[in-house]
C-alpha cells in the first residue's frame, strides 16, 4: 500500500497547500469576482451605452419613415365657373368639412338653396399659401354666380380649396403616419392619455413602481391580466425599439430604455414621440401609426379639429386598436371611449357637463379609411411611375414629401362608376357571362396635358392589372387621323375635299403575305371626298391614301404625335396594326386637341418636401409637333366623325348643340373597341375588350362610345372649337363636284383650307346665282 504514505504526505501537503490554496483561492476568488464584476460592469455598461446610442440615433436621427402624401387637384372657385351643387357637396365631404347651420370655424359649411357658406382651411401650396377664408357663394344653373368674402361682403376673384388627400406612398413595412408636433396635440387628447394610460407621467422617471404595484394587485385579485402598469415611456420603448415577445428580458430592456429616455429627453419630447409612434389601426396592409394619421383615418379630419369625444375615442384605441375598432365594433368602441371620458372626469381634466356632452355624442367615424391607396389605385400607379423617374423609392416612402397631382376626384369617380355600369349593361344586352368584358379609361385636359382620371379596369377600387397603362392593344381605326393628318400637311396634294379611291386593293407585305383589306360593311364606295372617308372610317380609301403618302411619312407623323414604340412599315399599320395603351392613345389625341402642339401628359404638378420647400415643379411644356393649320382641318374632320360619321351615336348622350371631336376604333374580329375624343375642356380615351383577347363582339361605337358619351353627359363637356389659324380660310364647296360654290349651290358647305389649296374652279351651280336671284324676283 504504497499509496498510504503518499496519501498522508499528500494530506499534510494538502493541508499546507490547502491553507495556501485557500488563501490563494480566496485571493483568486476575489480576483475572479472582481474580474467578473468588472466584466459584468463592462458588459452592462457597454450594453447600456449601446442602448443609449440606439435610443439617441432613433430619437434624434430620423425617427419615422413618413410616407409621401398624394393630393388631388384643388378645386378652384370663381365667378363663372361651371360646377354643380352635387360636386361641391362631394368636395366638402372629401375634405372632411362638416355641414352645420352656420359655419363659425374652419372646415364647416352650410347650404341653403343655391347659397353655400364655407369656412375654408388654410393650406400651403407649392406656389404660396392659401389663407383660411369665409366665403359666400351662390350657384345658379350649374354656374357660380357670385363669390364673396362672407365677412367683408367684398367680391372675391378666386378661391382655391385645399386639395383632398388621395393616397400615400408607404414603405414595404406598411407603416403609415402623419407627423404631429407636441404643440399640435390637443389638450383633450393629452389629458385623456394621461388619465387612462399614465397618471403620473409628469412625475415618474420612466418607470412607475406604484402603478406596477397597483396593476399587480389588480391582476392578482382578478386572476388574470386586467391592468398594465406600463408608463407611456415604457410603451414607447416597447413600440419603438423592441420586438413584441413577452419575456422578462424584454421587460428589463423596456425598463432600461425607459430610464435612458427619461434621462436624456424632456417629457414633451417623449410624449410627442409616443403620439407619433403608437399603433392605432389597420387598413388592409397599411398600419395606422400615430394620432395624426388616426384622426384622418377615422374622422377624415386633422387632429386639431377633433372634439373631446373624438379625442377620447382615439385614446381608447391605444389599448387595442383591433378590439376597439370603431368601424367593426362600434359598441365596444363607445364603451371604451366613455370609459376614457369617465377617467378624465375623475381626474378633474374635464367638467361633468363636458363629460355628459361627450358621452352623448355619436362616434362620428367616417365610413371607411380615407386617403389610402385603395381610393384610386390606377391613378396613383401612374403618379408612382412618374415619380420613380425622379426619386428614389426610399425618399418617397420616408421623407414626408407632398405630391400635388392633377387628379380630379369628381371626374375620376364618375369615370369608374360609368365604365363598370356600362360594361355590365353591355354584357346583359349581349347575353355575355358577367365579368367577360373589361375596360380602361384615361381622361385629361386638352390644352395642358394634365391627366384628370385613370380607370384601370371595371373593379376600379382594386389595385391590379392597370389596363389604362399596361393593356397594350391594337388601336384599329384610331390610327386613321394620323394618316389623314399626314395628307392634310401636304396642302398642295390634299385638302378635305380631295377625292380618294375607296376601291379594292391587294398588297404584298414584307413577309410576302398577300393582304386584301376590306371595308367594315364589306362594300366599296368608289370615289369619296377625303373628309367623308375619315368620317365614315373607310378602310380602302385610307389604305390607298396611306400608300400614296408612303408608310414612312405616316410613321413619322405618329412619332411626332408622341408614339414612342417601334413601328414597322407594313401596310396594315394604316388600319391600326399598332398596339398602344389607352394612355399612349391619349397622348396622341392630346396633340390633336392641342392644335398640333405636343404636351407631355402629366399626373403631377409639383413635389414639396416635408417643410413645404418646393423640390420640383412639373411645368407645362409644349412643343410644336404638327402644322397647326393641318391639325385645324383634321379636327374639323373629327367633329364631322361625331356629327355624321361613325361617332354619330354620341348624339344620344350629348345635349344638342354640343359638338365634340372623336374617332371610333375597332380591331379584327371585334376584339378591341375604342373611342377617343375631346371637347374644349375634356379629352377621354376609352377601351373595351376582353383580358383573354378573345373577340368581344363590339365595335368602337357599340362598346367604348357609350362609355364616353355617358361620361361626358354626366360631367358636362364644352363644344370643341378653335379659331382658325392665319393660314386657314373658309371656302364654300359644292358637295356634288367638290368645287367652289356660292349661295346659289344647294347644300353648299364651308370647308377650311390652308390658303392656296382651295379649288380654283367654280362649280356649275355657282354661276347660277344670278339666275337663282332672278327666279326669286320673277
Amino acid at each position, binding site marked *: 500500500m504504497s499509496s498510504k504514505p503518499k496519501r498522508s504526505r499528500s494530506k499534510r501537503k494538502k493541508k499546507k497547500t490547502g491553507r495556501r490554496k485557500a488563501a490563494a483561492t480566496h485571493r483568486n476568488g476575489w480576483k475572479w469576482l472582481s474580474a467578473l464584476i468588472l466584466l459584468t460592469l463592462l458588459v452592462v455598461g457597454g450594453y447600456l451605452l449601446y442602448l443609449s446610442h440606439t435610443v439617441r440615433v432613433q430619437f434624434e436621427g430620423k425617427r419615422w419613415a413618413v410616407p409621401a402624401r398624394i393630393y388631388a387637384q384643388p378645386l378652384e372657385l370663381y365667378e363663372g365657373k361651371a360646377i354643380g351643387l352635387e360636386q361641391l357637396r362631394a368636395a366638402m365631404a372629401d375634405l372632411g368639412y362638416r355641414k352645420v347651420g352656420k359655419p363659425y370655424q374652419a372646415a364647416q359649411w352650410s347650404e341653403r338653396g343655391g347659397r353655400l357658406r364655407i369656412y375654408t382651411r388654410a393650406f400651403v401650396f407649392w406656389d404660396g399659401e392659401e389663407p383660411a377664408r369665409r366665403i359666400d357663394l351662390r350657384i345658379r344653373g350649374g354656374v357660380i354666380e357670385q363669390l364673396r368674402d362672407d365677412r367683408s361682403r367684398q367680391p372675391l376673384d378666386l378661391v382655391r380649396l385645399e386639395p383632398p388627400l388621395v393616397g400615400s406612398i408607404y414603405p414595404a413595412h406598411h407603416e403609415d403616419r402623419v407627423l404631429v408636433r407636441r404643440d399640435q396635440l390637443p389638450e383633450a387628447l393629452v389629458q385623456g392619455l394621461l388619465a387612462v394610460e399614465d397618471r403620473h407621467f409628469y412625475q415618474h422617471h420612466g418607470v412607475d413602481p406604484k402603478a406596477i404595484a397597483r396593476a399587480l394587485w389588480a391582476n392578482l385579485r382578478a386572476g388574470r391580466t386586467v391592468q398594465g402598469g406600463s408608463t407611456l415611456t415604457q410603451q414607447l420603448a416597447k413600440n419603438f425599439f423592441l420586438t413584441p415577445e413577452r419575456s422578462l428580458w424584454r421587460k428589463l430592456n423596456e425598463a432600461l430604455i425607459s430610464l435612458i429616455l427619461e434621462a436624456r429627453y424632456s417629457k414633451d419630447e417623449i410624449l410627442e414621440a409616443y403620439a407619433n409612434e403608437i399603433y392605432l389601426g389597420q387598413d388592409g396592409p397599411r398600419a395606422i401609426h400615430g394620432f395624426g394619421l388616426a384622426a384622418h383615418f377615422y374622422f377624415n379630419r386633422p387632429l386639431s379639429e377633433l372634439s373631446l369625444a373624438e379625442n377620447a375615442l382615439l385614446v381608447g384605441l391605444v389599448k387595442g386598436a383591433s378590439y376597439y375598432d370603431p368601424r367593426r365594433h362600434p359598441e365596444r368602441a363607445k364603451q371604451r371611449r366613455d370609459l376614457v371620458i369617465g377617467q378624465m372626469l375623475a381626474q378633474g381634466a374635464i367638467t361633468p357637463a363636458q363629460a355628459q356632452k361627450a358621452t352623448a355624442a355619436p362616434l362620428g367615424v367616417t365610413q371607411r379609411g380615407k386617403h389610402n391607396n385603395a381610393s384610386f389605385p390606377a391613378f396613383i400607379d401612374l403618379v408612382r411611375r412618374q415619380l420613380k423617374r425622379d426619386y428614389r423609392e426610399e425618399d418617397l416612402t420616408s421623407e414626408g414629401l407632398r405630391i400635388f397631382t392633377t387628379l380630379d376626384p369628381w371626374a375620376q369617380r364618375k369615370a369608374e362608376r360609368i365604365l363598370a355600369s356600362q360594361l355590365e349593361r353591355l354584357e346583359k344586352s349581349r347575353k355575355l357571362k358577367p365579368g367577360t368584358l373589361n375596360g380602361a379609361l384615361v381622361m385629361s385636359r386638352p390644352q395642358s396635358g394634365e391627366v384628370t382620371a385613370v380607370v384601370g379596369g371595371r373593379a376600379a377600387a382594386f389595385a391590379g392589372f392597370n389596363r389604362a397603362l399596361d393593356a397594350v392593344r391594337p388601336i384599329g381605326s384610331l390610327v386613321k387621323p394620323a394618316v389623314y393628318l399626314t395628307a392634310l400637311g401636304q396642302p398642295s396634294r390634299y385638302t378635305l375635299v380631295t377625292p380618294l379611291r375607296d376601291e379594292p386593293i391587294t398588297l404584298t407585305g414584307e413577309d410576302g403575305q398577300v393582304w386584301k383589306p376590306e371595308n367594315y360593311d364589306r362594300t366599296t364606295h368608289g370615289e369619296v371626298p377625303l373628309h367623308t372617308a375619315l368620317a365614315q372610317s373607310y378602310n380602302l380609301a385610307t389604305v390607298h391614301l396611306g400608300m400614296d403618302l408612303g408608310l414612312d411619312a405616316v410613321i413619322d407623323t405618329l412619332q411626332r404625335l408622341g408614339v414612342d414604340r417601334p413601328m414597322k412599315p407594313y401596310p396594315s399599320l394604316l388600319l391600326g396594326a399598332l398596339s398602344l395603351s389607352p394612355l399612349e392613345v391619349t397622348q396622341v389625341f392630346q396633340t390633336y386637341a392641342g392644335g398640333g402642339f405636343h404636351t407631355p401628359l402629366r399626373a403631377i404638378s409639383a413635389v414639396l418636401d416635408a417643410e413645404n420647400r418646393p423640390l420640383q415643379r412639373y411645368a407645362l411644356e409644349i412643343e410644336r409637333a404638327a402644322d397647326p393649320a393641318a391639325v385645324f382641318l383634321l379636327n374639323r374632320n373629327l367633329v364631322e366623325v361625331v356629327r355624321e360619321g361613325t361617332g354619330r351615336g354620341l348624339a344620344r348622350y350629348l345635349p344638342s348643340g354640343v359638338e365634340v371631336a372623336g374617332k371610333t376604333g375597332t380591331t379584327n374580329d371585334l376584339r378591341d373597341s375604342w373611342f377617343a375624343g375631346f371637347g374644349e375642356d375634356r379629352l377621354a380615351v376609352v377601351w373595351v375588350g376582353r383580358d383573354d383577347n378573345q373577340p368581344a363582339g363590339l365595335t368602337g361605337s357599340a362598346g367604348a362610345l357609350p362609355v364616353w358619351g355617358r361620361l361626358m353627359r354626366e360631367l358636362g363637356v364644352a363644344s370643341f372649337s*378653335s*379659331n382658325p*389659324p392665319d393660314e386657314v380660310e373658309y371656302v364654300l364647296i359644292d358637295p356634288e363636284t367638290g368645287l367652289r360654290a356660292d349661295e346659289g349651290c344647294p347644300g*353648299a358647305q364651308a370647308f377650311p383650307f390652308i390658303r392656296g389649296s382651295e379649288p380654283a374652279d367654280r362649280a356649275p351651280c355657282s354661276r347660277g346665282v344670278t339666275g*337663282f336671284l332672278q327666279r326669286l324676283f320673277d
Partner: protein
Amino acid sequence: MTRFALFLPLLTALLLSACGSPGGYRGGAPAPVEQPAGQPPGGAETRPYQPPALPETTRGEPNRAVQSLMRRARDLVAAGDLSGAAANLERALRIAPYDARLWNQLAHVRESQHQYGLAADLAEKSNTLASTDASLKRDNWLLIARVRRAVGDDAGARAAESQAERLR
C-alpha cells in the same frame, strides 16, 4: 441694374398684353351660310359646318379670376420670381386654356428664363389662338424673332420679324 434691365422689357410686354386689345381674340368663325330660299330644310347631310359657339366663360374678356392671376404673375415678374409667375399663369390657363394672352405672357416668362425653344412654341401657340388680335400676334412674332436670334437662327429671326412687320 442688369437684373432690372432684364425685367424691363418683359414687364413692359406683360403690361402691354394685359392692357390687351379689345375683345375679338376668340372670334373669327366664318359667317354662317344661309340656306337659299325654297330649299328644303337641310338634314344632317346638307347642314353646313359651323364652328360651334363658345361657352361664355372663355369668351371675350377674361374673367376676374384670370385677371387677378395675371396681375399676380406681373407682380411676381417685377419681384424677380419667374417660376412663381409661371405657376400663376399656368393656373390661369387651367381656367381659360384658350386665352391667347396667357400663352403670350407665359412665353415672355420662359424667354426671360432663357427657355428659348419653349418660349417660341408658346408664342406660336398663342398665335394660333389669337385670331384677329394683330398686336398680340405681332408681339408673339417679335418674341419668336428674339429667341431665334438668341439661338443663332438669324434667317429664322428675320422671317419672324417680317411676319411681325406685316401686322404693324
